[in-house]
């Protein structure tokens, strides 16, 4: 039996976390994540969810508690936004290096200073190199489905997963979505097991000072050094893409939804010009694409669902034959360009016939993203002869500046 409802994105996430059977929740409230943790805390207090809610004094502690809980063999969840995520940064790297399976929702928000409670992607983008898998949802149904799939991905790969969704655009917006049946989720998501669960009967030395070189332990077993451990984290993150696709296929068989684990394509089959974006911004381009198609321009939009690991070969194979690609993003690598743009450009480099590229920065700190402005930006980029010079290609264009 399925359960349809209209609720906020934060409540959708909380209900998914309950369905996933998370056993330990540790979180510190921060706008716009707060209603998500409030809902979890409320369900636990009312006995509607069988889990331990650990109220902590900071985000750093929130993730530290999850690290402890995941090490002790419990399915763990936390959530944050913006500066809260950055306060966790040190622990993010720890959870990844220790290969602890856990899931965190990041309700994306601009990073201070100056303070902003509104949406952009700078929080997640700035943590892209922490060794966490990062996926981006663009509606409430994806928040639910991605969160459920994320637990399985984290547990199969032993790599933590960050489920990102746009602050306010999704967190505080009410939309319809469907919750799967608890028994079906249970069948989809086997019980949590960590490879190095703390056990007094089987003591282990974990993540102690690890020498530059590999060594043999007391039992004569060869143990990798720091570099070997980090190499494998990278290799297995790349392999995680395959597992994510398999999980999505299984999810689709069971629940009838899915089919777009790495990216969600709209009108891309014969597209000469492709817009690339993440989160709700990608969906906003559907109307733009319709309008351009109506005018005879073969445009499409590629919504990137998985940002880390970066699906470079998937994306390059799809885009190498396009005439033009426009990357729209809500964050950047300061002093360079949009982070997604740089990633995408590097993925396309090995292909001889690569498309013209344009980079647009939009919606930082909640600046209104007008669909009309998006249309104008794409249309201008599609015009013949509008091939940018190398310098222009590498210079992001800002939409909606009020300077």
């Amino acid at each position, binding site marked *: 039996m399925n359960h349809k409802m209209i609720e906020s994105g934060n409540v959708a996430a909380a209900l998914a976390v309950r369905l996933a059977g998370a056993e330990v929740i540790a979180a510190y409230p921060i706008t716009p994540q707060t209603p998500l943790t409030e809902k979890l805390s409320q369900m636990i207090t009312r006995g509607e969810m069988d889990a331990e809610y650990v109220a902590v004094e900071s985000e750093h502690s929130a993730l530290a508690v999850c690290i402890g809980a995941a090490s002790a063999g419990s399915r763990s969840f936390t959530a944050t936004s913006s500066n809260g995520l950055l306060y966790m940064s040190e622990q993010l790297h720890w959870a990844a290096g220790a290969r602890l399976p856990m899931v965190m929702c990041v309700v994306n928000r601009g990073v201070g200073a100056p303070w902003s409670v509104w949406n952009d992607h700078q929080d997640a983008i700035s943590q892209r190199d922490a060794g966490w898998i990062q996926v981006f949802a663009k509606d409430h149904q994806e928040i639910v489905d991605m969160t459920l799939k994320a637990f399985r991905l984290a*547990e199969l790969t032993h790599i933590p997963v960050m489920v990102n969704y746009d602050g306010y655009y999704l967190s505080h917006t009410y939309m319809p979505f469907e919750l799967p049946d608890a028994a079906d989720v249970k069948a989809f998501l086997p019980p949590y097991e960590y490879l190095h669960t703390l056990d007094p009967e089987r003591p282990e*030395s*974990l993540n102690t000072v*690890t020498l530059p070189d590999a060594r043999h332990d007391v039992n004569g077993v060869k143990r990798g050094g720091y570099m070997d451990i980090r190499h494998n984290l990278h290799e297995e993150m790349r392999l995680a893409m395959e597992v994510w696709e398999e999980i999505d296929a299984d999810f689709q068989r069971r629940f009838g939804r899915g089919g777009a684990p790495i990216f969600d394509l709209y009108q891309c089959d014969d597209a000469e010009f492709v817009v690339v974006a993440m989160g709700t911004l990608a969906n906003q381009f559907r109307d733009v694409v319709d309008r351009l198609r109506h005018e005879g321009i073969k445009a499409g939009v590629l919504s990137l669902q998985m940002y880390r690991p970066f699906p470079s070969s998937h994306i390059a194979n799809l885009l190498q034959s396009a005439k033009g690609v426009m990357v729209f993003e809500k964050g950047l690598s300061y002093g360079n360009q949009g982070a997604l743009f740089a990633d995408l450009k590097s993925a396309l480099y090995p292909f001889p016939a690569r498309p013209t590229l344009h980079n647009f920065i939009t919606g930082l700190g909640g600046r209104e993203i007008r669909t009309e402005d998006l249309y104008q930006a794409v249309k201008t980029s599609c015009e013949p002869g509008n091939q940018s010079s190398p310098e222009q290609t590498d210079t992001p264009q800002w939409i909606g500046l009020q300077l």
Partner: protein
Amino acid sequence: MPDPRFKVLTSASTSGPGDAGRTGSWRVERPIIDYSRCTPARTGKPSCHLCWLYCPDNVVSKSIEPTIDLEYCKGCGICAEECPVNAIAMVAEEEFPAGGKNEP
């Protein structure tokens, strides 16, 4: 459990003497236990054992008379520092000329 394709290499190893190599040769001072003062030895009960608990290299046995594996004891002196009845003395290695560092 992880998918079989994933090795999940972490810094994890069985705790035990020798986890950091044959560290007995590092020793400058040797811990010597005075069993007339040592709590478990004196009472005959499996109690205290703080030396066993604190030893960073797991070289102290959790026995009624705790013993120290000198093959791996690097002479850090934490056991002597922690012993609540001052039963452990750190004695310079020069005092033991007869055997090698690993011989009592």
